[in-house]
């Protein structure tokens, strides 16, 4: 190595002033000299004072005018203005540990053949309510089970060499207009272009965002539709098995098998009551989800695991419907096409893909 790697930390934010302060303060308490890295916050048209909070801590604040352009666009604009050899993307609702970023930088410095490294999700939640704890556990479950196999790049806390990011074409800006799987897609593209990506399970990061039932359903719905419509369910599952949608759908096949067995057995039982049939269905679903529920019980106790059962089953249903809708949309409408400007750039052979959408 010719010298220490210069690090740039990019935090995209849109209307998350409530979490941004904690996130930036955590970055600033990293075990690194302040001069060793620059902190760039990209404010994606927030209306809640996120830019003002960013100004308290960041070296540079980029204010994107107009409507929200999405995290992929924001990350790209931030990366373009950084000077680091290595760029770390940290979510605006993510709290890193003091050793997380230095350790990830050490990994990249020690392994020149490695192009990107991501942190895992911690099972603990920064918010105290049931839904936030459930979501964190769901993320943590996927991370823990698949940390060795996965090749996803995590925008929640991922570090990548500038050269690799540029050569892979940066984030896909037109397909990922909401904070949803843009990192998974970038990870797949990195892998496809011969870059190596790893996830380190040593230093998980904590999400401080407060989730409720509605926001979880919306998130699972968006992920499921996008996975089946654009990313390819099977292809993504083989490269990123820790993704939440796969944690949710893993139980579907055993559940169907159990339900079929129950249905066949019912043929030999004279007039089973409705409550018995309902009980058998729920029991079959619970049995199919035993690995997740055991994990919940181990991390948070039996009471929490029991309380999470209805939420988990509902979330699974939303995920399953979302996947089906995505498949139907793919067959009926196809993958979303880039806008006319993007297509025009592509036709004239712009090397850097995707091109930057211009503010109207």
């Amino acid at each position, binding site marked *: 190595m010719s010298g220490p790697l210069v690090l740039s930390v990019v935090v995209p934010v849109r209307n998350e002033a409530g979490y941004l302060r904690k996130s930036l303060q955590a970055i600033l308490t990293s075990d690194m000299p302040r001069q060793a890295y620059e902190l760039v916050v990209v404010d994606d048209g927030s209306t809640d004072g996120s830019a*003002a909070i960013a*100004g308290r801590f*960041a070296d*540079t*604040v980029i*204010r994107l005018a107009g409507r929200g352009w999405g995290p992929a666009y924001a990350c790209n604009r931030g990366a*373009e*203005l950084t*000077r680091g050899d290595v760029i770390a993307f940290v979510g605006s609702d993510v709290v890193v540990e003091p050793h997380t970023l230095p350790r990830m930088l050490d990994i990249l410095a020690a392994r020149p053949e490695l192009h990107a490294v991501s942190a895992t999700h911690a099972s603990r939640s920064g918010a105290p309510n049931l839904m936030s704890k459930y979501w964190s556990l769901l993320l943590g479950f996927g991370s823990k089970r698949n940390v060795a196999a996965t090749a996803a790049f995590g925008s929640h806390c991922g570090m990548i060499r500038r050269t690799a990011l540029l050569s892979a074409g940066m984030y896909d800006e037109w397909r990922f207009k909401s904070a949803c799987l843009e990192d998974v897609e970038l990870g797949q593209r990195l892998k496809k272009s011969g870059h190596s990506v790893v996830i380190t399970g040593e230093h998980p990061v904590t999400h401080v965002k407060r989730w409720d039932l509605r926001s979880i359903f919306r998130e699972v719905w968006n992920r499921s539709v996008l996975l089946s419509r654009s990313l390819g369910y099977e292809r993504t599952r083989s490269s990123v098995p820790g993704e939440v949608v796969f944690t949710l759908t893993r139980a579907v096949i055993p559940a169907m098998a159990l339900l079929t067995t129950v249905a066949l057995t019912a043929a030999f039982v004279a007039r089973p009551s409705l409550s018995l049939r309902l009980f058998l269905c729920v029991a079959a679903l619970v049995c199919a989800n035993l690995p997740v529920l055991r994990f919940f019980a181990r991390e948070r106790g039996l009471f929490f695991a029991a309380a999470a059962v209805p939420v988990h089953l509902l979330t699974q249903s939303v995920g399953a419907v979302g996947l089906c809708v995505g498949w139907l949309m793919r067959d009926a409408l196809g993958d979303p096409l880039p806008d006319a400007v993007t297509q025009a750039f592509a036709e004239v052979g712009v090397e850097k893909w995707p091109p930057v959408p211009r503010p109207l």
Partner: protein
Amino acid sequence: MIQSLTDDGLQQQQLLANKSRTAGKPRVSVVFVLSENHVVSPDRVLTQLEQHVEREVDVLVACAGQPANLSSLQRVIGSAQFLLAPAGTDTEDLRELAMARATGDVITLLNGTHLDEGAETQRRLAQTS
């Protein structure tokens, strides 16, 4: 130009600033926070920025109280805005107040604590031109 940060209409000014941002070349604001622990002389950084002022770079100097060398700093960049907050205002508050006045799409905030801040800002300005 010297402004007191206790002026009314801060929000209105911010709204106007947002409105004036347009597509194309991003506008740049440089905020220099004159904190008590600065190690770099502000006039050194301002001198480095001077050549970029013609490019409509918006320079703001936020100070807690009135600095002793205010008039000499003003001479370096005549168009810089000097934002005078009450003495004792901490650095983070100064930065937030200056953010509200900055009109740029890209806002670089300097604390005067890093020796290469001036050069770094020049590099950033070159990047956005």
